[in-house]
């Protein structure tokens, strides 16, 4: 479905071998940020998806192979960009500090 489940959808039942997963955790001073928004921008900088982080600061995307940028917005913080490369069958982990 077309929604944003907090933290990103579960990997349960998903054939990860056919997915290019980007996931990670958002922290501030080492503590998880549960009310942040992480958006996935494509190689041209265009919005592709966005998820709110889970209570434990986690997020997940199912992207395509290639270069992506994560843009993280959190209350009372400037947005933070992180570059990431996704590949099919690989789970790319990104640690975002705001």
């Amino acid at each position: 479905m077309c929604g944003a489940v907090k933290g990103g959808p579960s990997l349960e039942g998903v054939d990860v071998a056919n997915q290019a997963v980007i996931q990670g955790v958002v922290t501030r001073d080492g503590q998880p940020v549960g009310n942040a928004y992480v958006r996935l921008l494509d190689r041209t900088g265009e919005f592709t998806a966005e998820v709110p982080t889970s209570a434990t600061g986690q997020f997940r995307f199912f992207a395509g192979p290639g270069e992506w940028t994560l843009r993280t917005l959190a209350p009372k913080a400037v947005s933070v960009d992180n570059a990431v490369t996704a590949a099919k069958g690989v789970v790319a982990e990104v640690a975002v500090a705001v």
Partner: protein
Amino acid sequence: MSRESALVTADWVEEHLDDPKIVLVEVDEDASAYDTGHIPGAIKIDWKKDLQDGVRHDFVSKEKLEELLSAKGVSNDDTLVFYGGNNNWFAAYAYWYLKYYGHENLRLLDGGRKKWELDARELSKDVPERAATTYTAKEADTSIRAYRDEVIEAIGVKNLIDVRSPDEFAGRLLAPAHVPQEAAQIGGHIPTAGNVPWSKAANDDGTFRSDDELKTLYADAGLDDGKDTIAYCRIGERSSHTWFVLKEILGHDNVKNYDGSWSEYGSLRGVPVALGDEPGAA
């Protein structure tokens, strides 16, 4: 319609929290978001459980809508202010749906749940109690809803706007990247459709861009003001967002939402499909 008649700000909502004739309605795909905290006094509508038929691949009938709003304590003369997650995608969908069934006073909270959260405004877990009403919906306004046959006839004739991300438009992704990429349907877009991702109409905090920016956006995309327009996405919620921009903010006359969208079109036999970043020929 105009920005002033269709949108309200977070400040305006805070000033009207105690007005009984103004009903805040949260609509999220992740229906649990409301339960973790919502704008004080807001009621919840679950876009899937409450608004989808459940048997037919369609939204609920007029009668079911009347039952739903009566049970929720909504009256015909209430002003409904929708907001939600995903930059108001599903809130815009609900707005469009209520417009389809003739509710008169509808608003969208600019920026939706995200802006409210990023502003660190108050959220409440208290579920309001509203006495049941007898809500009466009007006959469906078919001037704002497109079906597949009209969409096929519109190829090369009307403005077709695909509001999905460029990678979905081109066929490189089959769904937004926050859900698993399903393999059940083909990728691509309706030939001659321009790609104006819904996100270009919004700022990072989820609020809508200014009228001038919005006008430039669609003019640059080649939208012909002299033609009718049909917007689509994958399941009709992001295109509700763009329908809202064109019809309710910019005041274009003939704008329809094709809520069947790519999940329907990309499953049809015998229809043309274009791949890649260009609109393609009729």
